[in-house]
């Protein structure tokens, strides 16, 4: 289940980023309002929510790029305000709409930051060539960045994180402004980072684009985390169920058999041969064997994955109505 109700849970032992009561005030307004979360090693964690929800501000506090008003944040056991270099040596950051020196080539841009990382000439040369190959920019490595598209710049930013061999990659709005093809490519690169053992923290307001690659998400609203957990967990909690599986099959006793599958919360009979199951997980394989086990003939099997958009819309719609009733 989601951790949203535990105000001060002990961070899990494998947590690499922990925030407790983290708050940022601008004047009287709280841009980030006492958020607490723990990000585990190796996971892809999404800070999700609409523009202005406080995602970027949360990230800036982790990197010491803005002062913390109250609360605490720890990154790999270091306090970013006290030991910023320790944090920044181990964390790569790709800001929203990242910028490079347009008059320099990709290699020159990376060489500059690699020098700032303290890498030797040989390390720089090897790592930069390797990183550019991995983000598929090797062919344009010696072109000025002025000629790069938005998607190429994003990938160059990722290459910088690869050069750093960062333990944690923090990505701000990595897919906004990218066309569908570039988005898919970029998400694949993030998945590769994760396979290589990097913990990924990303922020996004494009929920549907990133939901597939996030192991867990925190839904931000007006500076607070409204809910946190895996997409499936949140779906169960908010929508009653995560997955909606539709089965079309001929035979008798199918509905009863389907309802015995573990994780299925409801089975509706839509018409003579059509059933709709709501379940906590993707139960298509179990549904198929259930139909077969009662000697039915399976004609169609489809699944609607839970959508973060739906979860988000439902949550905040309910909240708003609650407020209206209270008023």
């Amino acid at each position, binding site marked *: 289940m989601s951790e949203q109700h535990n105000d001060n849970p002990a961070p899990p032992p494998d947590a690499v980023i922990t925030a407790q009561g983290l708050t940022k005030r601008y004047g009287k307004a709280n841009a980030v309002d006492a958020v607490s979360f723990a990000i585990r090693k190796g996971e892809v964690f999404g800070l999700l929510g609409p523009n202005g929800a406080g995602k*970027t501000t949360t990230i*800036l506090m982790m*990197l010491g*790029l*803005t*002062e913390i008003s109250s609360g605490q944040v720890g990154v790999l056991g270091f306090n970013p305000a*006290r*030991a*910023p*270099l*320790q944090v*920044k*040596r181990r*964390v*790569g*950051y*790709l*800001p929203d*709409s*990242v*910028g*490079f*020196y*347009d008059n320099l080539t990709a290699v020159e841009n990376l060489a*500059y*930051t690699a*020098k*700032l*990382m*303290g890498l030797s000439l040989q390390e720089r040369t090897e790592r930069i060539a390797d990183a550019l190959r991995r983000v598929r920019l090797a062919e344009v490595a010696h072109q000025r960045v002025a000629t790069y598209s938005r998607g190429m710049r994003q990938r160059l*930013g990722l290459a*910088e994180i690869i050069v750093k061999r960062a333990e944690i990659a923090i990505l701000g709005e990595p897919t906004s402004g990218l066309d569908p093809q570039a988005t898919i490519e970029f998400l694949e690169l993030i998945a590769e980072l994760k396979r290589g053992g990097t913990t990924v923290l990303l922020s996004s307001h494009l929920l549907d684009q990133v939901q597939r690659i996030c192991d867990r998400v925190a839904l931000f609203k007006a500076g607070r985390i409204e809910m946190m957990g895996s997409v499936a967990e949140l779906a169960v909690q908010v929508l009653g169920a995560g997955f909606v599986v539709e089965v079309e099959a001929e035979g008798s006793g199918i509905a009863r058999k389907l309802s015995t599958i573990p994780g299925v919360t409801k089975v509706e009979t839509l018409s003579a041969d059509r059933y709709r199951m709501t379940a906590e997980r993707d139960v298509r394989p179990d549904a198929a064997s259930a139909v077969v086990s009662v000697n039915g003939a399976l004609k169609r099997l489809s699944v609607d994955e839970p959508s973060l958009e739906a979860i988000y819309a439902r949550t905040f719609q309910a909240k708003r109505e609650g407020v209206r009733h209270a008023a």
Partner: protein
Amino acid sequence: MRREGSAFQGLGTVFVKELSDNISSVRMLVLELLVVLTALAALYGAIDNLRQNTAEDPFLLLRLFTLARDPLPSFVAMLGFLVPLMAIGLGFDAINSEHNRRTLSRILAQPIYRDALLMGKFLAGLATLGVSLTALWLMVIGLGLIFLGVPPGGEEIARSLVFLVVAIFYAGVWLSLAMLLSIVFRSPATAALVALGIWLFLTVLWPMLAPAIAQVIAPPDPRYAALGLETPDTGLWAQFLLRISPNDLFAEAMQAILSPQTRTLGAVFLEQLRGAIMGAPLPFGESLMIAWPQTVSLIAGTIVLFVVGYVIFQRQEVRA
């Protein structure tokens, strides 16, 4: 609170990058061209003037720096006017352009302190100005050799080297002012306009305003006026006010160094004249002492402006 690691980590890297940016920039090329052409014109005037007056002069080389021929200003006056322009040109977009290119957060996410970025940019700017001024200095020496045909003496070289150092500090004041404005104003155009406004005010308006303000603070005494003399209090105030401007400090220091017969700067008092033969050059060391307060003020101004910028920059939020 003690910070971990060195504040200067990455300083060299930033310095090298900024220096190569500066040197290869079109903007710097244009500014240097402007300065060189103006300098050549000023030197031409001085050489022409010197050739017509072939009187014995132990400091022929120094005359090249200070001699003016209408309508051209002297080389030193020309530098006093143009060096701020070069420094502003190097500094007005130092930090805000990193914001606007959205490179700042990416750079500051590397394991360096902001100190290294700011200091690296400042030192690279100062080095660029230093290289340009040294080139100009060599140009003066070279032209002197060619057209006056007299090899410069040791003291002349020493004095002209002091000129070089003070000119670099003078450039430093304007560079740290321009960088401060680049931190305060997010738009480079605004920063440039404000910097140029201050420059015009201090070079053109302030020399007229300062004496006027002095007369308000310390009204002239009619008894002095009757004798056609300046009231000492009014004169002191005017001098004090003028010295707020780095241009005035630079001009005074240069006068002491490059015109060896200078015994005092600003108002002349009788005690200082007593026993002194007007026109006899002072030893190098004494000229240095006269120029010292002005030089220190220029250095102090540089440091103060830099520190103000530093403090603001440290606390600035870096979203871009």
